Every structure is written in C-alpha cells, then in structure tokens.
C-alpha cells in the first residue's frame, strides 16, 4: 500500500505551529494574570449606566474619568454644546454654554475675554448623547481657534462620551 508522505509533510508544519502557539498562549495565561480577563471585561458602574467598556476614541473621556477630574484639584471647565433651552433647564455643575449653531468664533472670543479659561487644565465639551455631533464640532472649533493658547497653558480638550444623557443616567449631579 502506498502512503503519501507528502501529505504528512504538508500537515507537519501546521501541527508544529499549533503546538508552539498553544504553549505560548498557555505560558502567557500563566505569567500574565491580567490576560486571563481579556475576553471577559468586567462591567463597570459607567457601563451599567450606558457607557461602553470599549476603549474610547482619542479625545473622548468617560463619565468616570470626568468624575475623577472634578474630584481632583485640577481645574476643569465644562462646556455645554446643547440647545440653549436645554442648558437653561438643566446642565452639569459650573458648565458654560456655547451654541454650536450660532457664531462660535464670537462666543469663544467672549469666553477668552471673560477669563474663564485661565488656569484650566481640562476643557470638557458635552452635548445630548452619544449620537449628537455638537460637542465634536465645538471641540474642533476650540482646538482650531485656541490651539496655541491652550497648548501654552497645558490645557487639553475632551468630549464627554455619551454626553449629558450618560452623565444623568449615572446619577450624577446637575445644576439648573
């Protein structure tokens, strides 16, 4: 009976690589306890409130991060980019309003003139929820108009992931 050794030779590398891969994977799981949790990320309070556990895109922060900043000694300025009526009904504590549908350059100029940006380390913009684009629009405008000024004083600009809805769902304080 003729046996094809070529067939065996073809499968041998696959077996060798699978064995190597299995050994290395086992070694990693043993050596790095954190790696065992990778496929099963724990649910956080923020996730339960609607925040995603998927790492946020650059330039966005979660409610829990914002909460940490607000509780730290670092100066945070919140910008509300929702409609004026919504802002007047309810907003995050100490937030200032910028209307993305009005003349943003003039509003930003007035903001600088008011001195509200002085000493600010984190500038956080938010709008209604994850689907609104107003916070991104305002954040981009701020970066464009105030890039040099903010860079000089070491201020970063972020967008609150999930916006006002996620903040409120997380039972966080608001102001009228």
């Amino acid at each position, binding site marked *: 009976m003729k046996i094809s050794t070529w067939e065996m030779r073809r499968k041998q*590398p696959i077996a060798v690589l699978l064995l190597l891969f299995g050994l290395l994977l086992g*070694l990693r799981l043993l050596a790095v306890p954190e790696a065992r949790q990778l496929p099963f990320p724990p649910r956080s309070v923020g996730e339960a409130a609607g925040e995603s556990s998927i*790492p946020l895109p*650059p330039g966005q922060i979660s409610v829990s991060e914002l909460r940490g900043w607000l509780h730290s000694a670092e100066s945070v300025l919140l910008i509300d980019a929702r409609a004026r009526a919504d802002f007047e009904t309810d907003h995050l504590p100490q937030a200032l309003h910028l209307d993305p549908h009005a003349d943003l350059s003039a509003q930003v100029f007035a903001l600088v003139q008011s001195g509200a940006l002085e000493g600010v380390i984190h500038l956080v913009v938010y709008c209604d929820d994850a689907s609104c684009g107003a916070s991104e629009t305002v954040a981009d405008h701020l970066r464009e108009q105030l890039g040099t000024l903010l860079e000089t004083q070491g201020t970063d600009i972020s967008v609150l992931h999930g916006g006002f809805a996620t903040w409120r769902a997380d039972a966080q304080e608001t102001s009228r």
Partner: protein
Amino acid sequence: MSAVAPPLFIRAKVVLDWFCVLALALVFAWAGMAKWGEAAELREAIGHYRLVGEPFAGWVALLLPPLEITVALGLVLQATRRLSAGMAAVLVMGFATATLQAWGRGIDPACGCFGDSGPSAPVLHLLLWLGMLAASAWLWSRSRGDHPRTST
C-alpha cells in the same frame, strides 16, 4: 547540458534568505514580546482602531502576542518557514488594513504595534509593511521545495 548557477549567485540567495528570516523573526519577536505583559493597554490600543468591539478586542489582545512569537519561531525553523512566511504576510496585511482604515477615518490609533515604542510617522509604517511583505513573499517563494513523494 544543464545550466549551473554560479556559486556566488547561490550564496547571495542563501544570505538573503537568512537576512529575511532574521529581520522578520526579530520584528515579530520584538512586537510579541513588547505586548506580552501589556494586556489592558493592548486591548485599549486595539479599541482605538475602532475596527472591532468587545469582546473581540479582548480576544485579539489575548491571542496576538503569542501568535507573533509563534510566527517568529516558525520562521527560524526550516520545516515551518513557508507557512510562517504566509502567516507573517497575512498579519502584516491585517495591520496595514487596520491602520489605513483608521487613518482614512481621521483617527490616529497610536498603533501599539511594539508596546509603547515603534514607528510613529506614516511613511515609516508604510516602509515597514512593504519591507515585511517583500521579505515574507521572498521566503514563501524560496521555501517551495516540497514535492509529492510516495513510499511503500
């Protein structure tokens, strides 16, 4: 009369074989080792590409470093070189596709390819991918030595 390749030409090919093996193996081993202990950071870096969500980002973060080191070791072994070269090419094309789509959507994913280090300029990424693809293709074509054989 059969043509005989000049010895110098053969030697040059062997040298190029080993250059490609060592270069590719070093890059993959470096990439795998740099990410070995960085579980959460790697998942975050993968998430920045916005290509796969959870739990796939976690699975990729778990499997990628051992896979890269497997490819590096497989390239060094003669018996597994061809298959490893093919896997290397597939991985490089995967990395390139992920990074290009992120750039196309205006995202700078800060690739995390080599832990905290690695190329940052797009042109360096492109050069690295092209070089690795060329080396993989060379090794793939050079390892085509297996022919069907039978024994009784």
